[in-house]
Structure formats: C-alpha cells, structure tokens
C-alpha cells in the first residue's frame, strides 16, 4: 500500500524523479533570449562588415589618387633630370611609393631633334594590403630639344665696346659636305656683339653678316635662349667637373663630346685643348695654342686678349653673366663656325621638353 502525500507533507518528501522535475521547471525565455542575442551578434557582424568594406573602398580611392600623384610626379621629375640622350627607364621613390618612368623614341624630327613617348607608372603599396597595390599610368609626348648652336655666331660677346686687330671670326661653316647631316650649314654671323666696335686693321670676318650688332645684352642673351643659371648650377650634371677631372681626350672615342664645367676662372693652356662643351663660370683666360672643337660658354672675358693665338671651331659665347665692359681682341685668335662640332657638342645639352596638350592617363 503506497502512502499518499498528506497536506502536511512537501515535495521534498516525494521520491526523486529528474525528468519530472525538469518538466515542471521548464521554460522558453532563456532559449529565446539566446536566439535573439545570436541574431543581434549576426546583425552586428554584418553591419561591421558593411562598414569595413566601405572604409576599405574609401581607402582604395585615396590610394588610387596617391598613385596618380606619384605617377605624375615621376613624369615631371624625369623631364627635369634628363640631360643629353634620354635614359630608357628610371625609377623614383616618391611619397611612400614608386614611379617607374620609361621613354620610347617615336620619331626623329628635324635632325637631330627627336620625339619621345614618356610613360610613368606610379605604384602605392599599403603595407596592410601589400598584395593589391594601387597603380596608375600616365603618359605624355616630349621633344628632345637642343639649343640651336649651329644657328649662332662663331663668337658672341656682351662687351659694351669691342676693339679688334688682326683677329679672325668666320661665320661660314667650316664643316665639309658629308662630315655630318646638313653640312655645310648656312652661314652665320662671324661675330655677334652689342653695338660698339672698332676695327684697327687685319680683321678677317665672313658670314651672314660678318659682324652682327644686337643692341642690348638682354636681346643678345634672349636670342641665344640659354639657361646660363642652370648650367652654372653645380646640381646640373656634367661629365667632368673641375681641373682635377679634366678628361684625357685621347682615351675618349673620337665621336665623344663631353661636357666639362670649371667653377671659377680658367686658364686655357694648350694642354687643355680638346672638344665638347666647356662651361667656365667666371673668366676664361685664353692662351696661345689652345685649340677647341665644340662650344665654349664663359661668364666673362678678360679686358685684354692680346697676342694670343687660340682657335675655336664651333661656337664661343662669352659675357653670359651679363653686359661686360670694353674688350680688346688683339693680334691673334680664331673662331670658326663649325656646324658638325656645334651639333655634336650641343647634344649633351639637350633636354626633354614636354609637348603640351598631349598628357593622358592609360586605363
């Protein structure tokens, strides 16, 4: 006979039955709350993902702009740093990225000018997403421009007054037919000066005309179209700088016309005879026996150049620092225009001039 629970008895007096206890104590709130919390977490993850994606898109947009800026900077830096024959490819580190610039020759224009297509690819790498760098490519045509030395006088000076005796300035091209393309070129001035000159006899000039007066130093210098301030700058790259680096011309190829810069005064002894472009930032003191093929650019000429038997074949341009005083070119000295030497020498002073209105971006 099973004892029935009385009113005084409690559940604790009941025999233990776990399933029955759980069933009586069961509910759905916890489960539902857990489910809702899970749903909240999922929604939160989705929202986070959406925000993260948007943030990354904005970042990529910014990086694309940076890559474009790097490409553009590389392009202009290449134009600014090129002198002489354009380098086929160059790499610049700019603003946390890299610009790779290449140049392709597309045409030879009027000899020896050339047209190039310059391409700059800018790359910006975010260290957090290094597998997907931002990259933009820009292009522009550029003309390899030369200063037309072959169109200049055999000798040019900005002296306020020039006194001449027993000297020679030839504006007729000394280059023989076949020596180079276009030789012999049309005659130039034998001597270009400002206004005042006096001939004391024995002055041998020819050209078109033999002596040309330009009026003012500014007009004369503008006609030359020469960036003297750039050429004087020690940052402008030259092949040889200073007497300590004076080249051994015998060891150079015969068709090599290097650029040499002397910072300060220069005594042009015969031992320094050679070829190329000679840049003298201050006075050039010509000496007997000095022989040069190419171009000489000098800041100043001493007042007296007397009894000095020198010879320059190409172009001799002095007084680039501006108008200078009286000069006596007396008894000795020849300057002969030579188109081939002028062209060969001026090739090292070429630069790339970007063609306006030809910039575009490749996609």
């Amino acid at each position: 006979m099973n004892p029935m629970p009385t009113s005084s008895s409690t559940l604790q007096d009941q025999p233990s039955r776990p399933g029955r206890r759980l069933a009586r104590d069961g509910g759905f709130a916890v489960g539902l709350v857990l489910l809702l919390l899970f749903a909240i977490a999922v929604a939160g993850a989705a929202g986070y993902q959406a925000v993260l994606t948007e943030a990354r898109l904005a970042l990529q947009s910014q990086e694309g702009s940076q890559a474009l800026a790097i490409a553009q900077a590389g392009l202009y830096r290449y134009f600014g740093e090129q002198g002489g024959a354009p380098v086929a490819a160059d790499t610049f580190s700019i603003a946390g990225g890299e610009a790779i610039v290449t140049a392709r020759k597309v045409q030879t224009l009027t000899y020896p000018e050339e047209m190039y297509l310059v391409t700059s690819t800018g790359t910006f790498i975010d260290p957090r997403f290094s597998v997907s760098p931002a990259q933009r490519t820009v292009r522009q045509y550029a003309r390899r421009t030369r200063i037309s030395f072959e169109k200049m006088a055999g000798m040019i000076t900005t002296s306020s007054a020039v006194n001449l005796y027993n000297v020679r300035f030839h504006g007729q091209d000394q280059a023989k037919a076949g020596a180079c393309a276009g030789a012999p070129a049309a005659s130039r001035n034998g001597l270009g000066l400002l206004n005042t000159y006096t001939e004391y006899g024995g002055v041998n000039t020819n050209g078109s005309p033999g002596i040309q007066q330009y009026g003012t130093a500014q007009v004369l210098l503008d006609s030359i179209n020469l960036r003297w301030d750039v050429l004087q700058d020690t940052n402008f790259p030259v092949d040889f700088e200073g007497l300590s680096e004076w080249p051994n011309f015998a060891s150079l190829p015969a068709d090599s016309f290097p650029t040499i810069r002397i910072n300060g005064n220069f005594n042009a002894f015969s031992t320094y005879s050679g070829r190329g472009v000679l840049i003298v930032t201050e006075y050039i003191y010509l000496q007997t026996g000095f022989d040069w093929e190419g171009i000489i650019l000098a800041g100043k000429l001493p007042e007296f150049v007397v009894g000095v038997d020198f010879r320059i074949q190409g172009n001799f341009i002095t007084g680039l620092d501006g108008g200078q005083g009286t000069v006596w070119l007396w008894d000795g000295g020849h300057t002969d225009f030579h188109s081939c030497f002028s062209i060969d020498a001026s090739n090292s002073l070429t630069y790339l001039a970007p063609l306006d209105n030809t910039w575009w971006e490749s996609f």
Partner: protein
Amino acid sequence: MTLTAILIALVTSVFLAQNQFYYDVALRSELQENARSVAELIGAEIRAVADSGMVVADSNQLVFMTPVYMGMVCSMQAVDRDVHIALEGATIDGDEISGFGLRDTTTGVWAYYEQTWIAMYKESGVKPRDKCVTAGADTVGAYDDYYRLQPGTVTPSPAPVAGMAHMLYRELEYSFAASTLVTNGRALYRGTYGDTLVELATGMSNDAHFEYRLDGQSTFSSSVSAANLGEVMEVRVVITTSSQAEQRPGGEPPLEFGWTVDVPLRNSH
C-alpha cells in the same frame, strides 16, 4: 512569466533597433559608393581633355571629347597617315571611337574630326611600321602599334604631317535626368554623345550638378557659354545622393551623402 515577457520585450527592442541601424548603415554605404565611384569615373575620363575638347558645359550636362588612344604621325603616304598609337599591348575597340584629332605643331591646338574607326582604318602591321622605323621609331615592344589611317571623306585642316600628335577620341556625355529605374528618382546617365545614354547611377539628389572654372577666374560657375568652352580649366563634380522615400518607411527623413571632386584639366594648364 511577467519577467520573461519583459526580458523578451527588451531584447527584441534592442534587436529591432540594431537591425534598423545596420539597415541604415548599409543604405548609407550604398549612397557613398554610388557617389564616390561616379565622381572617380568622371574625374578619370575628363582629366585628359585637351583644349577645345569641351562640347557642352552645363550644370546638368557635360559633354567632352576625351582621348581614348594617343599617338604620333610618323609619315605620310599621299593622303594616308602612318601613325604610332600607344597601345602597349591593348587592342583598339572601334566602338569607342567617335573620331580623330590632330595637334597643330605650331600652335599646339587640337582640331577634331568626326569619323568612325571603320572609316579611318586602312591597314596595320608591316607597311606603316616600316615607314615609322625609317622615321626613327623604336619598335621594340610596340610591334603591333602601327596603323595606316585614311582620311575618307574627312579633310583635315591643316593637313597632317609627320611629327603631329594624333588622338582617337570619344565624345562622352554625362547628364543628370529623371531616372528610368527608380520612380520619382534622379540618375546620372553616361554614353556617347548623340547616342542612347545608359543610366549609370541612381539615387542622385536635385543638388547633384557640374560646375566650371575658367582661366583667370577663382570661382566656379554652373554653365559655360559656347564661346568660352576653350577657357575651362577645372571641372567640379558635385555628387549628392539621397535615399528614396520607400527606403525609409515611417516618415523618416532621407539619408543623404555628398561628395565633391575638383578635376583640373591637365592639358589646359
């Protein structure tokens, strides 16, 4: 039971609020992506417009001739021109071409001529390439980039000569107008000028427009007369996007996002 009900109500309200928040986040992200991508696309396509390349400059409409491919005339064969086109491995999509342009070697100004690619293309390969090599071109890596183009019925003036920069351009139009995909909405359309435009992006608000800055000016104006189109130096693209009413039920105000980009015309500087 009561506590359970309260607890459930609280959690549910949090869930619903968060849900609405993330919906708004997603909607705002969509607006931002539309605005950014459109502004970037327009900027990329208009940046290289050369002088005299603007056709229409209005607050709701922008039409310009953008260079698709640039090149250089190597030599002339009677009236045909041998051209190096800087493809660098790509192929020409004739459908993109509205015409060609020639840059005057003296003034540097571009002249544009309407002609389809089919009409101007004569041949490519050995013949034009050999002529360009004779003219001094470096063909390494650009073997297939040489074309012989014919004038057809077009008479360029001045006549093309070797050394002239050459352009294959596309006349593109961007315009803001009523959307065909979203009722009562405004959209940005894109396409070839004169052809059927394609709806590029929806959700544009009434404030989305174009502005222009002319040479010598420091302020932008909303339209440019035909006589001054050649003076445009910079284009301002004002993209403002707005959500639709049905996307924000319950009378909530629309979500808005604005993105403005000033695009200097590189070839005008």
